[in-house]
């Protein structure tokens, strides 16, 4: 094992060690576990950066740690792929994780599950790192599920709250539905290629029938839909906000939910050879982007707004990978991880300052009381709205420009409208929370968060401001593009560029959309030019639709959950107890009934016994006779 492979394997080792340490001996560490855990992840981050430079200045590699499952021709090892794509992801994951860990020390201070929290958080980081590094589908699937499990356990971290444990369960089960498709995709892939190793699969894909590739790609995409909370499996993500806020920042904004995008980027060969599957990805992504933004317009729970914006932004990423602009998708993934992580951390800070209050209607005027939080939040909001020079501008516009230039005008138009809506709802949140007149409970002591929380926020805000510059010169020939493009050379270019509209023209439109959105929010909530209530009553049905999240949960409950439960009850009460067990008991009963009858033959009369005996003898003789 040479240096770079040992570095690669050391990266997941630290979080794993952390998990075991806090999980088993957490109670002996008390408050210390937070610092040590952060240090562990920090080491992983440093190692990731080192690995990043190793890979950047040499080339990627793969390595197998040990053979894992060998059964017949099914041979899978615990093996890692380290290329440019995975090191970028590694740096992002460990970096954001480090900051979130540090933030959590302050946020979770005094919680009785402090060590438990860090143990699971470390387990999550471990799983996420392994997910990114895995070199075969089985390992990917393992950690794909493992991050889902961590999400489950962390959403339900405050299990005393029924809503929290419900949300955790919902997240796990909805993810499982996606994973079911993912698993079937793996089966089909194994059936078609007899291997689960990435390189071997990719080398075989061009020769495979398009239909097979399409089906496999769509099934894998089903997993991505579940994990990345795309329509129609997005329902778990808003509920997942029941978990501690740093968890939302790490898992439900920066890392786990982007695993779907990463997976498609990783399987770009597969998707690019199936234009149909890519088109489905594009459609789902576009629709989700719009749909989630629409819901976010009217919500009052700040975390839910940010959650829906996550769903919406993930939609953008799927748009990108759906048109074959994988670098753009990953770029948005990175920048989104930072600014959305930032938004969640600041939202957590608001929550912390208001003792857990999340309702926008009970906030206002917080700017003066928590300046750092407010400013960093605004940085995040501007990045989300795509205002230059914040990172969201570069990454989102890279996607939209590609969508336009590749000729998907409708998707582009939807993307622009969504951008407007995005700017509106995030600034609605900012204005209502920080600038409008205060509706905060007078008894509440509003305070800025401690340094240990604000420091990560400031660092994040710094990167949210600057990370976009790796996208310069914008779009197809940026530093980032040139760096990452190396990994995407073997794609089938199914969506060629048809326009050559200059980027500044297109980005002008997006920036305009963003600014309009912000301005509308300003008019409504600061200038009070129009009373929001009036608009509300003007578009009552649409408002209700948005406010009630398009009734998706209710529809699922009514159309799927209730009938299924009734059916299951029928199966148990009627089929199992009455029919099957009834048949068994019926047979037993028939024997018993027959026995009651047969007992009458035993009338105790010796003569009748003798009679029966002799008739039997006669009959037997008769049988021999006629034989």
């Amino acid at each position: 094992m040479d240096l770079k492979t040992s570095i690669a394997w050391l990266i997941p080792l630290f979080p794993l060690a952390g998990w075991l340490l806090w999980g088993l001996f957490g109670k002996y560490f008390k408050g210390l576990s937070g610092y040590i855990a952060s240090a562990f992840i920090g080491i992983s981050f440093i190692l990731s950066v080192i690995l990043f430079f190793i890979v950047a200045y040499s080339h990627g590699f793969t390595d197998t740690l040990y053979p894992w499952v060998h059964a017949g021709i099914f041979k899978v090892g615990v093996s890692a792929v380290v290329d440019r794509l995975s090191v970028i992801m590694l740096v992002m994951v460990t970096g954001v994780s480090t900051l979130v860990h540090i933030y959590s020390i302050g946020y979770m201070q005094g919680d009785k599950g402090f060590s438990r929290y860090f143990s699971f958080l470390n387990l999550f980081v471990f799983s996420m790192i392994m997910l990114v590094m895995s070199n075969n589908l089985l390992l990917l699937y393992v950690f794909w599920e493992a991050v889902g499990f961590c999400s489950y356990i962390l959403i339900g971290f405050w299990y005393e709250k029924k809503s929290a444990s419900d949300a955790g369960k919902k997240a796990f089960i909805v993810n499982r539905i996606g994973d079911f498709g993912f698993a079937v995709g793996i089966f089909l892939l194994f059936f078609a290629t007899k291997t689960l190793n990435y390189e071997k699969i990719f080398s075989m894909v061009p020769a495979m029938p398009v239909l097979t590739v399409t089906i496999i790609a769509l099934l894998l995409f089903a997993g991505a839909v579940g994990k990345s909370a795309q329509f129609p499996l997005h329902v778990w993500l808003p509920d997942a906000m029941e978990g501690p806020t740093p968890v939302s920042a790490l898992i439900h904004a920066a890392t786990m939910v982007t695993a779907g995008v990463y997976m498609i980027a990783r399987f770009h060969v597969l998707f690019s050879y199936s234009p149909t599957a890519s088109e489905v990805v594009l459609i789902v992504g576009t629709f989700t982007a719009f749909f989630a933004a629409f819901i976010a317009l009217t919500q009052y729970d700040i975390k839910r707004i940010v959650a829906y914006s996550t769903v919406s932004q993930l939609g953008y990423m799927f748009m990108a990978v759906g048109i074959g602009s994988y670098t753009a998708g990953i770029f948005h993934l990175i920048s989104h991880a930072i600014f959305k992580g930032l938004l969640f951390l600041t939202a957590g800070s608001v929550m912390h300052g208001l003792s857990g209050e999340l309702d926008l209607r009970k906030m206002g005027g917080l700017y003066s009381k928590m300046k750092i939080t407010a400013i960093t939040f605004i940085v995040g909001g501007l990045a989300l709205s795509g205002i230059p020079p914040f990172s969201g501008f570069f990454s989102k516009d890279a996607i939209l420009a590609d969508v336009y230039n590749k000729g998907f005008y409708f998707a582009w138009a939807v993307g622009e409208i969504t951008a407007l809506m995005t700017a509106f709802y995030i600034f609605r949140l900012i204005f209502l929370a920080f600038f409008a007149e205060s509706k905060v409970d007078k008894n509440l002591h509003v305070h800025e968060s401690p340094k240990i929380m604000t420091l990560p926020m400031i660092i994040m805000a710094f990167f949210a401001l600057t990370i976009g510059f790796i996208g310069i010169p914008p779009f197809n020939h940026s530093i980032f593009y040139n760096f990452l493009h190396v990994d995407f050379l073997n794609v089938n270019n199914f969506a060629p560029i048809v326009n050559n509209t200059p980027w500044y023209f297109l980005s002008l439109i997006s920036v305009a959309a963003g600014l309009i959105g912000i301005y509308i929010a300003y008019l409504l909530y600061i200038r009070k030019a129009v009373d929001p209530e009036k608009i509300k009553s003007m578009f009552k049905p649409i408002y209700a639709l948005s406010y009630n999240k398009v009734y998706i949960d209710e529809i699922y409950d009514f159309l799927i959950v209730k009938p299924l439960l009734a059916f299951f009850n029928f199966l148990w009460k009627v089929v199992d107890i009455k029919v099957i067990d009834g048949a068994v008991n019926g047979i037993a009963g028939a024997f018993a009934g027959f026995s009651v009858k047969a007992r009458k033959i035993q009338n105790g009369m010796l003569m009748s016994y003798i009679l029966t005996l002799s008739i039997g003898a006669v009959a037997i003789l008769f049988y021999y006779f006629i034989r």
Partner: protein
Amino acid sequence: MEALFYVFSFIAIFSALMVVTMRNPLTSALYLVLCFFALAGFYVLLDMQFLAVMQILVYAGAIMVLVVLVIMLLNISKIKSVKTDLHQKIIGIAISLVLLVEIIFYIAYGTTKKPTGIFTHSVIDKIGNTRVVGEFLFTKYMLSFEIASILLFVAIIGAYLFAKKKF
């Protein structure tokens, strides 16, 4: 010899019929003794004198004495006569007739194996039939013989227990 066979057959069948038809058990018992004697005669005809003697000793002697003793013991005259109802008679006769027909058909149409043993009449006569039986009984069938003796022992105990006044 032929004539003797028919004489014995007639006696046997006739006395057997009498056994089952006589009303008085004592008469039946006496006819049964007669029947046993006739059977003993058959055994003599079949060159098994030892068996014939045993037949008379065990059956006609021991068992029948026991039966007669019991009949006396129960003081049969005091028992109100046990009546037989008609349908039972009919069923009995019918079944036994069918049985008889079957047996006769079976014997008539059945195939007989070739003689396989070595104990022809002359061999048995040379050794002596008692000795033949005895030798077999105490060598090859030793175990069965012992078991039979145990059975008898058990039967004695059983009979004693049953006949005891209270048990």
